[in-house]
């Protein structure tokens, strides 16, 4: 454990790299302000700065993030250059057609997440550190391609017509991509921070499930086609409300999969404490701790997201809280995790009951995220199947 921290310290101490990172961010921000400043209102400029500061901080405490962001930027810019403002290039240009057009990038993302899941589990079974490292690499590539897909889709939506463009976090298809990307980013952060790859397969399994849905949704329902936003969604609030929400969902999803891993390891350890599986996985105490951390992270961001949602509702629907089904289920989810945290923090419960509870929490989350759109009617019915 102490290894980790020292490692982090040397990372963050390489001030030269951090300095370069910050300079780059500053330049990028200035460039966006100069190039697009006329189209941005004061809220969007604020959001731009917030994004800049978050990335500055993330890059400082988490060096691999810098390479990820750089790769996303370069590939996205390459895609834009290839497009040159003409949407039909998506089929004509080799790079776009096979790699960089949003739909292609998202297919690559899907493929790499699938592969990553298999490789992580393979590494776990073979107890091969190298293989697990490869799983991690694949997860990084998938995440990068997913992010590129979103960035390019953003631009594509603008190319469809002067007033159609919007940030691609607005329908069920887009937020599923966001979910995959954010969940794996949070996981990769933990993976490095806690020097454990044993959980990779479990988290990627969750992402694979999301990818499966995504593919079904794209091929069966043509959900990937870009369509103009309904007026209710045309708001700067969306740019912060949705991503914040998905940091919450992503963290809860990770906690769930840690819960699953915890239960498996603890059952196995009971029967055969020195089995390979038990030895290859992080210790029970470490998983318990990480589960708590994930839920705390999720809770904090989910709280922010719900509050932002309320602020937005006040502006769009005329009331910050109207007991709309989506709002109500967010509250239910929130209350559930509040109870979880109290149980864990003040009553000191831990271990299997909390792992089970984290898994139950996932089903509440799934209903909040999807079930409400499918089964209940309300104001949040944009994301229907």
């Amino acid at each position, binding site marked *: 454990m102490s290894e980790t*921290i020292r490692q982090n310290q040397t990372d963050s101490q390489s001030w030269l790299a951090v300095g370069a990172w910050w300079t780059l961010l500053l330049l990028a921000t200035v460039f966006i302000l100069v190039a697009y400043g006329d189209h941005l209102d004061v809220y969007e400029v604020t959001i731009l700065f917030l994004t800049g500061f978050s990335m500055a901080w993330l890059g400082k405490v988490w060096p691999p993030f810098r390479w990820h962001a750089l790769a996303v930027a370069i590939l996205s810019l390459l895609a834009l250059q290839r497009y040159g403002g003409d949407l039909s290039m998506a089929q004509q240009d080799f790079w776009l057609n096979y790699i960089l057009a949003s739909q292609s990038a998202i297919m690559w993302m899907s493929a790499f997440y699938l592969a990553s899941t298999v490789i992580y589990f393979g590494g776990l079974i073979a107890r091969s550190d190298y293989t697990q490292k490869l799983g991690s690499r694949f997860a990084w590539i998938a995440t990068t391609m997913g992010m590129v897909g979103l960035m390019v889709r953003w631009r594509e939506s603008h190319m469809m017509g002067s007033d159609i463009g919007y940030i691609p976090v607005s329908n069920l298809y887009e937020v599923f991509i966001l979910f995959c990307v954010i969940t794996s980013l949070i996981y990769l952060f933990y993976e490095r921070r806690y020097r454990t790859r044993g959980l990779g397969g479990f988290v990627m399994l969750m992402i694979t499930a999301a990818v499966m849905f995504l593919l079904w949704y794209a091929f069966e329902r043509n959900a990937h086609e870009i369509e*103009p936003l309904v007026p209710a969604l045309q*708001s700067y609030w969306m740019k912060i409300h949705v991503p914040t929400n998905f940091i919450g969902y992503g963290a809860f999803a990770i906690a769930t999969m840690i819960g699953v891993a915890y239960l498996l390891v603890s059952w196995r350890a009971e029967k055969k404490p020195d089995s390979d599986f038990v030895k290859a996985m992080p210790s029970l105490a470490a998983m318990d701790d990480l589960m708590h951390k994930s839920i705390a992270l999720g809770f904090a961001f989910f709280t922010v997201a719900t509050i932002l949602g309320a602020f937005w509702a006040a502006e769009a629907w005329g009331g910050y809280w109207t*007991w709309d089904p989506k709002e109500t289920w967010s509250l239910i989810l929130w209350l559930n995790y509040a109870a979880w945290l109290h149980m864990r923090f003040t009553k000191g419960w831990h271990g299997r009951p909390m792992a089970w509870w984290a898994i139950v929490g996932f089903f509440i989350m799934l209903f909040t995220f999807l079930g409400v759109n499918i089964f209940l009617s309300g104001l949040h019915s944009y994301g229907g199947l």
Partner: protein
Amino acid sequence: MSEKSNLKLFGKNSFPRRLLRFLGTMELAITLLITLAIASVIGTVLQQNQPYTDYLIKFGPFWFEVFESVGLYDVYSAPWFLLILTLLVVSTAVCVTRHTPSMLKDMRNLRTQVQRKSLATMKHSEQWISRDAPDTLAASFQQQLKLKGFRTRLTDRNGALLVSAMRGGINRLGYILTHVAIVVICVGGLMDGNLPLKMAEWRGQIQIETRDLPLSQIPQESRLAIGKQAFRGSVSIPEGRSSEVVFLPMRDGYLVQALPFRIELEEFRVEHHDNGQPRSFESDLVIHDPELEEPLRHTIAVNHPLIYKGYAIYQASFADGGSALQVEAWPFDHRAGDPVMLDTKVFDSRDMHWGDRQYRLEMTNFRLFNINPDPTDDNPRRMTNSGPSFGFILRSHTGEATEYENYMFPIEREGRMFYLSGVRSSPSENFSYLHLPADAHGGVDSFMEYLARLRDRNLVADIAQLMTRDALADLPEPDANLEESLQQTLITLVGMFVRGGFDEVREFVEISLPEIERQTLAPAYLGMLREMLARIYFAGVDGHELDNTDNQNIFFLQDAVDAIGSLPRYHSPVFLMLHDYEHIQASGLQIARAPGQFIVYFGSVMLVAGLFILFYLPQRRLWIWLDEEGGASRVLLAGMTNRNPRDFDGFFDEIQQLLKPDKQEL
């Protein structure tokens, strides 16, 4: 005596104290959190605040009453729900009140009273010998810890030196902020809820209106005066009109809230994307307020409300505001009269006569755009705009109502153009569509002419005769009887078809033919009918025969026959065609006053600040105990944290590296 009861009231184990203690327990808090979560589910599963008749139909009279009495139709303001919420707030308040003093103290307390023994047994502790004297060491340690963000204090403990240090004392403030925030948010929310209205209703001061009345007839008991209270309601204003009130939906009815100003709607607009989907909804409003020097003009849109005097005015919906329509009514039976032009308006109704029947025509709606999935595209998401349509209801003299939806322009289906008219006999059904073929000039004239020809006895008789002759030409010698009967049959078939479509023809065949012959003769009859229909069609008007090899004519005939065949199910004696319109819209505004909003927002900010402090600024304490040992020092470093023990492991190592550079183990 009185002293004793006082003692009892405030004593350690008195009832109020015990109650207070109970309210502040973690067990209760967790139970309440879970109970509230489960209770909240109800209102999402059962749609809230629907018309009571809907519930009645759904649950039947018995369960309807039961559910009503426990407030299931408006769960979130049911007394028992508010009770759970109140208990949670009280519990949180008691909890914070009880913990705050000790937490505040703990924030500043550097714990200089610790014993060496307890430091040595801490999970995180480390000892070593240093060559430096205790006071030099103490000064340098303090310096280094300060750089790490610690507050430090040096105390002399019977000759030994103790450096106490703490970082993240603010963590305790996180707890206080988080929990006070819950109370603040709930209080603010309560101010904006409809509890005061409920109370007024229980006391009989107001009465919910459930009838659909014109504003002027709504009784005083259902009206609310201008005031400071919170409300949320809506009002629909047609273009060019204004409103001084807003309607608050309450259970199965509404209340009328007066406004201190008048809102006029100048214009409502829907901006569209290229593909016809709406891009924005906008209303040009004028606020007339005696306190204003001149009226305030403002355009609101979805996501861009107007806030005036604490009243927030939102763009919520839109509807027709009484568009003017010019409609041509074509009787299907030309004997009922010529086509007439009607000047009417949406929401108007009038009595009409066609033939000897009387009908009531009610115009119900007008839509400028109809964006529907394009049936010619494989992709179900591709949309197309079918242009304006209008809706109306036709009531027959027996009171039977049929609803129609007619499109203004012909719509293409498989390369041919049709006037579409949807028909249904109850709002719960989907429309089924009559497809009237449009002629080369884009009118229904040709169709109506053809229909008239089918009713022309002389023409039908002539053509029946011709057809009979052709059919019987091969007979060796003419048979007058057979000829007569065949001709008559043909005339009857056409007559039945015009009256009752293919259905009636089939029914006739069933009844009139003996069973053994039905199999072979029924198709023959239908074939003869079709031949007749074609001959009548191609005979044309006034002897201008139509080209019966022209595909366009063949298709038209086929479509016209299909349309006539389905007329009996259309239930209307006329076809209404829209010629011209003046679009007048109404904007649906939502108007709200929420005096507690600021409090809720303030509480929300507190909550977020509190959570991040609580989660990410852990309280960390360090102690360094320095004993002198022959000019050198024996150093004991110990530490603890209140959360994230795993992170602290690494942190403690780091501190150790920092303070013990020469690595002299004990």
